[in-house]
């Protein structure tokens, strides 16, 4: 799940700051835009390039724009860019290009030549990330930190990618530039799904402003018989799963469903124990995450990454486990939360 950012109150400068990470992502995306424009066999190179250009813009110029013209105007142009991005993707104007693929024999001989060293950079990404997070998170010289103190994991991951790229450069005969070019194949195969999580965060924001949560609570109250403990538990668990499927994220569903069902009826109404209630409730939400294309990072992106013909196949494989666990959660919750 995408964890909410751990908000430390430290205000400090850092070399790998979140702003610099966004700039880096922006440069990577813009590099891909140029490569797309150079792709002569691309069937939709202008609209695909525009799609990624609008996206990369937000990373490259977003923070600068806030400094220059203020938050209000910046959010407006970003907002309009987002709508343009959705329209480009929605009308099928974003597609794969053409890529130079080495032959199978070439790949085999390279793999044989380089050997198990090929694994090293891939393994370095997680190892360096964890080591940096655990050991180097507070590294600083005269109050200038290496890692952004509010985003230590993300900064560590960025450093790890850099280290892995350099090591890969040494072991293979390919340069970091070639790595960037090659990554266009992967980014294109993910396509619009790469942007869905941010779009859902945006929808969640609109729901909060529009008080959708309150409306859901009112709606839920129409269907509840406050005396039926078992049905309340079922409603809470299944509601968590369903609302998570709509929002793509259990964190977005949790406050709404817990305030609407669990808190008034189960905790206050029947004296349910809060700790197991919320723990199992959140896990019921995760069952929903496994069953929805809205959780693009977990379900749709991997299908693209693995080149699956059916982009819902990961979800289909997960559904039996998810439903079994949802049922287990319901009975487990019913069995443990009531003390009397």
């Amino acid at each position, binding site marked *: 799940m995408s964890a909410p950012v751990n908000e430390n109150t430290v205000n400090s400068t850092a070399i790998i700051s979140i702003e610099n990470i966004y700039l880096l992502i922006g440069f990577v995306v813009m590099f891909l835009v140029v490569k797309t424009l150079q792709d002569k066999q691309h069937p939709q190179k202008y609209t695909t390039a525009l799609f990624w250009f609008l996206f990369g813009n937000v990373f490259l110029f977003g923070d600068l724009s806030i400094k220059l013209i203020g938050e209000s105007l910046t959010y*407006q142009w970003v907002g309009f860019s987002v*709508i343009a991005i959705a329209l480009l993707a929605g009308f099928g104007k974003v597609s794969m290009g053409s890529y130079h693929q080495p032959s199978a024999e070439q790949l085999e001989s390279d793999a044989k030549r380089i050997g198990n060293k090929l694994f090293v950079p*891939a393994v370095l990404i997680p190892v360096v990330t964890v080591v940096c997070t655990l050991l180097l998170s507070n590294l600083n010289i005269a109050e200038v930190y290496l890692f952004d103190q509010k985003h230590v994991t993300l900064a560590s991951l960025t450093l790890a990618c850099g280290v892995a790229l350099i090591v*890969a450069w040494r072991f293979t005969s390919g340069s970091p530039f070639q790595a960037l070019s090659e990554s266009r194949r992967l980014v294109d195969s993910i396509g*619009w799904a790469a942007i869905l999580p941010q779009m859902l965060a945006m929808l969640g924001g609109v729901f909060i402003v529009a008080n959708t949560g309150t409306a859901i609570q009112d709606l839920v109250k129409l269907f509840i018989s406050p005396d039926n403990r078992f049905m309340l538990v079922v409603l809470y668990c299944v509601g968590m799963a369903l609302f998570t499927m709509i929002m793509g994220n259990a964190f977005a569903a949790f406050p709404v469903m817990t305030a609407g069902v669990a808190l008034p009826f189960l905790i206050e109404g029947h004296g349910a124990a809060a700790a197991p209630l919320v723990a199992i409730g959140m896990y019921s939400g*995760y069952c929903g995450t496994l069953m929805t294309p809205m959780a693009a990072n977990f379900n749709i992106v991997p299908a693209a990454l693995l080149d699956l*013909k059916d982009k819902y196949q990961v979800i289909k494989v997960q559904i039996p486990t998810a439903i079994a666990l949802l049922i287990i959660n319901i009975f487990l919750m019913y069995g443990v939360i009531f003390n009397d």
Partner: protein
Amino acid sequence: MFDLNYMPLIGILVVVVGFALKFNPLLVVTAAGLATGIAVDMDFIALIETFGEKFMNSRQLASFLLILPVIAILERYGLQQRAKTWIANIKGATTTRILSMYFVVRECSAALGLLSLAGQAQTVRPLLAPMVLGAATNTHGDLPKPIKDLISAHAAACDNIAVFFGEDIFIAFGAVLLMDAFLKENGIAGIEPLHIGLWAIPTAIAALIVHLFRLARFEAKIRNLIAEHKSQQTKNAEGALS
């Protein structure tokens, strides 16, 4: 109870209907946002600003784009081929055994808070999927595309399920802190994150049992699917001869 305002719910309806009609999800989500904003009489420019602000503030979600160049260059020099060869040299490495082992290691490490130790882009695409495909090829010979896809999808599912149901045991993880903060905000005292983490354990164990049970039956399923595929091919070949 009778002055229920349904207008803010219109976005949910748009999402459900949009998905049922198979529109592009980006379009559906944007339309849902616009519809909700308009339904509750938000000023249009303010609505666009909300779009922009939330989109900007969730940019960290795109950080996986930084991993892709590394994976891309390694694949360009035969990473997947190497993973297959490597597995081929390990005796007794079957698809199911590799997936089960990965599941256990991933769930345990997630329970210890090591969430970024693996992931779809970092480990499933470059390492796990090629390894299990390699193992399946070892056992069954060349695989048709639908079976390859099924095995790859299982690799992705293992990563998701293991990390989801492991991570809430780790008390410093976002979800546990979110639940803790929610309870405190709503005036429920005397609960520590540790209690919430402990109550995540039964479901975590259930996830382990349920999924390992499914994986245990998966090897036989692959065998059946391949037998089916082969008999289909023989039939087709006979049909072509006669």
